[in-house]
Structure formats: C-alpha cells, structure tokens
C-alpha cells in the first residue's frame, strides 16, 4: 500500500474541481499534454456538502478509468446548489488509455478520507486529497 497526496488552490469552485481532476489524471499519466481530446463523457454528481461532492467526483474518475479506460485533459465543470444539495456536471474530454502512447505512472485506486479537506480562505478555494495507489 502507498499513497499520493495533492493540494489544489483555485479562484472559483468550478476551477477547484477542474484542477483536482487534472491532479488525479497526473497520478495516472506523467505528461497530461499526451492526452488527446478524442472522446467526450458527461459526468453528473450530487452530494450534501462540497467536500463530499469533490470526494465523489474524484472517486467517479477512478471508476471511469477502471470501467471505460478513459483519461481526461479538460473537465468543463459547473457546480451549483439546489435545495440544500450540491450538484456537479462535467463535460470531460479525453481519450482511452494507450500504454504505447501515454507514459503511465501508477494506478489510483481510492480517494481516502485521510486528511481530506476542502475550505475557503481569503477568497480562494483550497483542497487537500490523499489518494491510495
């Protein structure tokens, strides 16, 4: 067992989710510019808190990687709040994993609750995530 941690700082909630998504992709693929925008995938997530929305979103990316073998370079995220629930839609763009083309690093297998945090500070959104690999 081992893990990879990342921290994200963003000016908006949408950007926070997009950067966290890219950080997750960067655990998998060494050079993100190698991912071509050949496929689109619509992702839709809901949760009771922003924290769980991010947790579920990153977990969904792992799920898509394992079941459809897709990695992404653009996420186009929109987060909004309705009736006390947070909703996310993402029009993700990327392609299927090709080990001959993409330099793969390591396989993220679970987002953990270990030191997991999302907060707003001085007008910025911050997140800390530890991923089990």
């Amino acid at each position, binding site marked *: 067992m081992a893990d990879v941690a990342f921290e994200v700082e963003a000016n908006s909630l949408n950007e926070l989710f997009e950067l966290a998504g890219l950080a997750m992709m960067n655990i998998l693929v060494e050079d993100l510019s190698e991912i071509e925008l050949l496929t689109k995938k619509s992702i839709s997530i809901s949760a009771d808190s922003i924290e769980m929305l991010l947790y579920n979103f990153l977990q969904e990316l792992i799920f898509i990687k394992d079941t459809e073998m897709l990695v992404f370079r653009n996420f186009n995220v929109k987060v909004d709040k309705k009736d006390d629930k947070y909703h996310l839609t993402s029009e993700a763009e990327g392609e299927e994993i090709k080990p001959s083309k993409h330099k*793969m690093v390591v396989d993220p297998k679970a987002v953990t609750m270990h030191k997991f945090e999302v907060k707003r500070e001085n007008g910025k959104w911050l997140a800390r995530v530890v991923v089990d690999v």
Partner: protein
Amino acid sequence: LGVLEAVKRISDYLWEIPINYKKGMKVPARIYANNKLFRSMDVQVFEQITNVATLPGIQKYAFCMPDAHSGYGFPIGGVAAMDFEQGVISPGGIGFDINCGMRLVLTSLTYNDVKPKLKEFVDTLFSRIPSGVGATGFVRLSRSEFEEVMKLGSRWCIEHGYGWEEDLERTEENGEMEGANPRAVSDRAAQRGLNQLGTLGSGNHYLEIQVVKKENIYDEEAAKKIGIFPEQVTIMYHTGSRGFGHQIGTDYLQIFLNVMERKYGIKILDRELACAPINSTEGQNYFSAMKCAANMSFANRQVILHRIREVMEKVFHQDAEKLGLHMIYDVAHNIAKVERYVIDGEEKTVLVHRKGATRSFGPGRKEIPLVYRELGQPVIIGGSMETGSYLLLGTKKAEIETFGSTAHGSGRTMSRAKAKKLFRGERLQRDMMQRGIYVKTVSFAGLAEEAGAAYKSIDDVVQAVELAGLSKKVVRFIPVGNIKG
C-alpha cells in the same frame, strides 16, 4: 506528554504505550521492533495505533509489527483482535486492497538452468500477465461468472481449468472464504472488478524470479521438507483484489460513517477508523463483501499461477509437473478472520484484523494444511525489488502473544514523491541489471518509486520478528528477475 515520552521499553524487541496515554484507550498498544526499527518509525504510527486501542471490543493490545508505517486510520503493520460478540469490524483495519497477499511457487530448475533464458522468461511473463494502469485481465467473465468467483475464489479457478487441486490446500482458507455474498457488493464494485481477474496491478505489486543460495538457508530440515534446495529458482508475487476490493472498502467506509455514531453511538478519533458492530446488519454486510473481495484476490493469484505454468512450459519446453511448479503457500496480509484464542484463561472467538500483517500459526493448528502442520504455517515476507524476500514459519509464541500475527514486508521509509525525485527509473533498471537483476516495467516513474532505498531493510524486519519469536527463518531469496506494473 509526547508519545515518545510515554513509550515504555519492555524488552529488546517490544515497546508499550500505556492505556492512560490517550483518553478512550481500552487496551495498551504494543510495538514489536528492535531499537533501530523503532527509532525509524514515524510518530504518526504511535498516534494511529493508540487510536485503534480505543475501538469497541478490542482485546489485550493493539499491535504494531516491526514493518509498521502510518496508513489510513490503522497503521500498516497493525493487528487488532475484536471480541466477536461485542466488538466492531473496521474496513480501515483491513486495508483498501482487501486480501492483498503473497504467493510463493517452487521450481525444479536451478539458476544455471534459467540464466541463459532469463530475459526471454521475464519478457514472456511480462507480456502474458497484464500489469500497470488500465490493464485488463486475461480471464474474461460475464457478470454471473464474476459472482461465482466472489463466492468460490480459487475453487472457481480449479473448476475452470486454471490450476491444480493441490493448489487449494496450499492457500490460506483454501482460497475460498465461506459466507461471501455477492449481494453485499455494490454494482460499482462489481463493475470495477469485472475485467481485472488476471492482472498484477501497479505500485508495489510485482512478480519476481528468485534464487536460493546455500548460505541463505537457515533451517535445512524445514527447507528440505518444503522442497527447497540450494541454487533453486523460485517465483514470488504480490497482488490483491485490485479496484474491486478498493471499491468495497470505499463503499463501506461511507456506509459506516453514516450509521456509526447516529445508530450505534460509536465515536472514533479518525474518519478512516469508521466501524460498525460485527453483529450489526452493516457490519455483517461488510464482512460478507470483504469475503467476496478476498475470494476474488485468491482467484487472481490462482489464475496468475496458471499463466506462470503456461509460460514456463513454453520457455523451458517441459510440462509444468516436470518443472515442479508446486505452490509453497499463499498468504493474505490485508484481511479480517474469525479465530479462537485463549484470553485470560478462557477460550474466546475474536475477529482478528490484520492490515499489512501475516498470519503466523505455530505447529499443530488445524488451519494449517497437513503437509506443513508439523512445521508451522509458511509465512511469506516480500522485500523491496532490490533486496530479497523471506520464507518463515509461524510459531506458538505468535499465537500466544499477537493473535498469531507477524510482519508482512519491509514497509516504506520514504514517500513515493521523494523516491521519484531521488531515483530515475531507467538508471535504476540499468544498475539492477549490472547486479544481475533483470527488471521489466510498464512505468519507469513507477519503478523509481519502488527503489530499494525507499524501504526499510527486510533483514532488520525479519531479525526483529525472529528475535520476538513471532516467526522463524527458513530461507532468504535473492531476486534475479522482476516484473513491475
């Protein structure tokens, strides 16, 4: 009071953090380690193991093995036995990679037989056993077949031609944990696992070709009985339940967080220690799902063994029986098991959580296959890819002291990020080649993260468990070929 001031040294190999160190501790914490290993442990390990000591129903002590390092909630190298009636089950005490484990296989070949073909051998294994990110397994399953794998584990493999009948008795639990119910597994978990049977994985998962040196046989009689001889080539591999087990861990962590305090009034000190009473609906469902993942993992190691036999028949032009490709044993080192022990003079049923810890039963115990029952249970300890690995035997002392548990590997001392900064995969591969170890990898960046220097010394870990009497050394294996995902 800082934790290091609170620790008492009990003996050369044992340390104790008393029950009054932290509010809510129900038992003291005990750390098995020599001075060097103890000093190198991160302080987080002690905080985590004392958090474990607060869990409802914990018996005697919360234990750390000599290879302990901090994990999520529980330390890796942690052992906790819970009262089966009053205690809790915690996914964090088992690990996300449910039934991650080791399998060790004999051959009748010597290093001289293999050396001229080593490159071909490693390359063929590499091409035939999918590894790395995004690899799909060589066993194609329908959803209903996958559910059969969850229920039957290795038995499913044998029934479908992936192995020999004798492989079953040489696997912990005979490769089939009873009570696995696929209905306790989420649809997402099943979808993630469906195409992963017959994959090695990535990260610290590997398959290694090893050699026995005469000077590395410590117990000649036991080695002989097990079928080990000088210059022999052996095969060891390390893998688990892949995304399937991880999804089950993730699912139930959330389920437990939702009910733990509200429904069962249990307060914990770390979200990753989420738990539920063993006897609750949620607890029973998780245990049942955990068994599904354990069985998938046994099956994964079983179909990989079948592949190894196929590859060796092709490379060495002999059939697998003639090549002597018998398993020594298969151990689970991320798992919870129902076992019986004498506690305070009374025989009691407990649920032993072993996270990065190996079962280590002494001679005579009924769970040990007949072929080894007189010797004690084989314990397989994997080192880093550069340094070597061990076969040990379990002891009565482990049963008395640590709920039949011992170490599982070397344990990291350096973060993956730091290892990647310090080492270059391509360079490491060349250096290892010069030292006679041929490595084949999907990812050079991943390889750098697994450099030997990123791990504790396996020799120190094994010395500590032997000194403590938790297991005894039989043989040390040195690597000559390695496949990394």
